[in-house]
């Protein structure tokens, strides 16, 4: 009997110990997570990170722009700018971060998307600082530059980058001041060769803000979403004066370019089509929410107001 009781007590004690230990462990983990989250929004003044892994391509760009490029030890599968990133280890991306590989790079700062809560907790438990990037407008881009500059010990470089960027954006705004504001449809996706699967920028996000700054009135600015898929009917009714397609890739041969532009001829009553103001722009910088938004704003302004912006 006693032996049987002892046999029973053993597992119970173990269970109690585990049960007792677990809440403590998870409370600690939660506290770590909270610290990490706070790190995301309000960077503290801890020692600068020396080894940074970035899962967010546009934040990688920011790191290089503020002079923290040499501290970057790992990047996401989609990073391709600046060229230095191509030589760095790839550690997955939003959906498939390779935690083991990231840990093996011994980072002291990992940059993730704000939506990657689980990964955030994992690194926090491993005692690694996590910066959660949240996608937004121009202000949130500048804020992210400020944050990563501070976290990597390049505060003054960060401030300079931000100042330059502000000046550059302001210069674009000044140059198009007084120009007629053209109703513009900013296309960010379309099926090749047809008018199907057209996605345009809505009234939220950095692309909308850059268009506004470059002297264009967003034809879909009233739709408070970053992107929307208008029907052919809606595009005809909105009658944009300028249509600009932004493509992240390289410019195709002239024949392809012409064919893709001609796709729009279907919507003959749209002023942009009638007046030959359908423009196809190519380049990774056009859609990157990072330090190259000044370049993108200039490109948009050049297309919208070719006479005042050279």
């Amino acid at each position, binding site marked *: 009997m006693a032996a049987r009781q002892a046999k029973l007590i053993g597992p119970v004690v173990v269970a109690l110990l585990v049960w007792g230990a677990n809440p403590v462990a998870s409370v600690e983990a939660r506290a770590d997570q909270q610290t990490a989250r706070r790190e995301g929004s309000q960077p503290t003044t801890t020692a600068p990170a020396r080894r940074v892994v970035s899962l967010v391509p546009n934040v990688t760009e920011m790191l290089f722009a503020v002079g923290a490029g040499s501290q970057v030890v790992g990047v996401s599968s989609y990073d391709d700018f600046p060229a230095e990133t191509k030589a760095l280890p790839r550690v997955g991306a939003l959906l498939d971060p390779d935690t083991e590989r990231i840990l093996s790079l011994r980072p002291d700062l990992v940059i993730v998307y704000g939506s990657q809560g689980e990964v955030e907790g994992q690194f926090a438990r491993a005692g690694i600082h996590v910066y959660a990037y949240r996608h937004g407008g121009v202000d949130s881009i500048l804020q992210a530059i400020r944050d990563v500059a501070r976290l990597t010990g390049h505060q003054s470089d960060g401030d300079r980058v931000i100042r330059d960027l502000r000046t550059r954006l302001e210069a674009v705004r000044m140059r198009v001041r007084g120009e007629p504001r053209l109703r513009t449809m900013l296309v960010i996706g379309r099926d090749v060769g047809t008018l199907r699967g057209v996605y345009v920028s809505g009234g939220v996000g950095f692309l909308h803000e850059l268009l506004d700054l470059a002297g264009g009135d967003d034809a879909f600015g009233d*739709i408070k979403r970053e992107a929307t898929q208008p029907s052919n*009917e809606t595009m005809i009714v909105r009658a944009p004066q300028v249509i600009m397609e932004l493509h992240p890739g390289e410019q195709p041969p002239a024949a392809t370019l012409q064919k893709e532009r001609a796709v729009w001829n279907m919507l003959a009553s749209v002023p942009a089509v009638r007046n030959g103001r359908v423009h196809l722009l190519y380049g990774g910088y056009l859609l990157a929410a990072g330090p190259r938004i000044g370049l993108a704003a200039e490109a948009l302004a050049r297309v919208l107001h070719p006479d005042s912006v050279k």
Partner: protein
Amino acid sequence: MRASAHPHTRGGDLRVRFMSVVLGYGALALAACTLAPLAGSTHISLARVFDRSIPFADNVDAQIFFVARMPRVLTGAIVGATLASAGVVMQALLGNPLATPFTLGVSTGSALGAVLVITFGSSAAAGALASVPLASLAGAVVASAIVYVLATRPGRPISTMVLLLAGVTLNAFFSALILFVQYAADFTQAYRTIRWLMGDLDVGSFTPILAALPMVLAALAIFAFLTRSLNLLSVGADTAATRGVDIGWTQRLAFFSASLATAAAVSLAGPIGFVGIVVPHLVRLMVGVDHRIVLPASALFGAAFLVACDLIARTVLAPIEVPVGVVTAMVGGPFFLWLLVRRS
């Protein structure tokens, strides 16, 4: 099945029923196709639409009517009719009320083709060949060829059980490949593929419709030829054989025509769900189970149903659109559940 009670309706009686069903459901489909282009997210004036004195390029109302709405309504009618009648044929072929045009993997093969082009087409040097409809058609051909090879033995009737299992397995396999491609794609591409899978009738011109039409018409013609054999087939293969139906031939013809119809519809508008399962059942509730009646009724009702669903899709949240596949599922889903509960 009630078909067993009276698979042979007397000629004259059948003709009257056929005519009344075609006229009734035809009127419904015609009404849907006539009224739907008049409504939309914006108001247009019909007088202006047909005003020849205004050049077409200046006539916004005519543009909306002829470029945006007409191709869309026509696509809805064609795809609705095709999927609904392919659903009838699949249900008869497989002897399973849960069968849909998508059961045998055609649509998933089609989807894989489309997803591959959406993901890799724009960057690759594929150029003009990188067309989503073409790729989805190719995917459908590959999928049906695989299922056919797996499920048939020369000179023997197809085992519907093997056909069903092969189809379901292929669906799962292709779905896994689609997930893998989406996983490898970047976010915008992955989002676009998901959007394609919800179906979209906004084809933007008559060209894609003309491209799909010959396949659709060929399939519908074979369906019409098959109706009597399908009646006997749905009673049971043995009974059908004793009544002189060449089972193997009928099955093969049904399989190919239904696959062709599905491939054409999916390449035109994406895999729009629920039309192919709900419409045949709804129509059977109203007109009985004789395929000679059910098939034309389903085609016409399917056309009206999808055109109506698309009208909801493009107006309810305008200027934002609801994917039409979401509307058909939201209208069709509850209805189908109600049907299941009622049956049991």
